[in-house]
């Protein structure tokens, strides 16, 4: 269920105009230390490329 929900959520957020790269989803097992590190590296690289978020950010 989470899987299907996520597939639609990613598409939908992209559709309304949020950068698709900001929504990232994957599976990592507790034993996959190296994979975890790689995923986080990938995520930070993607987010760094996009810069700070300006959409849906509430300014108090």
């Amino acid at each position: 269920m989470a899987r299907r929900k996520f597939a639609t959520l990613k598409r939908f957020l992209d559709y309304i105009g949020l950068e698709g790269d900001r929504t990232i989803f994957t599976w990592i097992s507790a034993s996959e230390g190296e994979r975890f590190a790689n995923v986080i590296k990938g995520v930070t690289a993607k987010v760094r490329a996009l810069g700070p978020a300006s959409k849906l950010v509430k300014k108090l």
Partner: protein
Amino acid sequence: MENIDKKLREEAKRLLEEKRVDALVGYETGTLPLTATPCFITNPEDAEKLVWNALCTQNLAKYVHDLISQHRESQKRVKPEDRKKKVFGVVARGCTTRSIILHLQERQYARDEIVIIGVPCTGYVDRKQLSILVNGEDIQEGALEGDQLVVKTIAGEKRIPLQDALSGNCLTCKFNNPVICDVMIGEKAPAIAGAAQEYAEVEAFENLSTEERWAYFTKEMAKCIRCYACRQACPSCYCRICFVEQSQPQWVGLGEDATDTQVFQLMRLFHMVGRCVDCGSCISVCPMGVDLRKFLKKLDKDVLELFESRAGASMEDVPPLSIFKEHDKEDFIFNP
């Protein structure tokens, strides 16, 4: 249409007299010209009030759900041996039956608690569109004559083809005949010509740039005054406590901050994945004219593309978000 009204009244009267239904939800002529309003009938004599025409807008499945849940709630305070079952009748067009199927699939009530009177549908009049067609003038009198609307305003009488005033969702509707029904009134309506272009609007929007899409989303959501009329009218929105009213945790802020409104709309829209039947009730009740359909239709399109499923399209379907298939696309998973 005269004929359909007559048959509908006869059928409703019979159902009430034979006590096959305790109450019936239908449409009656509204108090303003060129309107129809939902009505509840318990007395067989009142069946004469019922009408069925292109002015009947709201999805009545919402009322069926409300009535059944209220009745069940009231029965909780009754001794178990004295509890009564109530059956509700409903006048249902295609989209209403789809909503009913959705409720049945989501186990909201049992099939034997409702009697569906199916009616053919060729689309309903969009009040906002009609208002544009008469240049925003106050409609003083109006009548439906065949496929034309005769509208009298301060500027004089005007004849408007019904087709021009139809709601956007009706122009591309694929389910204009009841999907399920116990009694069918009249002949099945012919298929809608524009049904093939159902997703044309969504596809055009997909082709815009990210910034253009975001600009449109923010522009539309800036209109929203958060009256929650969309939620109240939506047959798929039946949570007892909606996330907007929850305070622990508080999902959405209650102020007038633009992001709060965007998040509210985003969350409500996203709750419609595989559940929106495109009845247009939310849009027709929206006092600000927010283009919700642009976003709801996208969810419908995605669910059809990804999971080959449509809300309420058949009784045998399983809600798409409650199952999983091996060949589901996996391109959304991030693998560095």
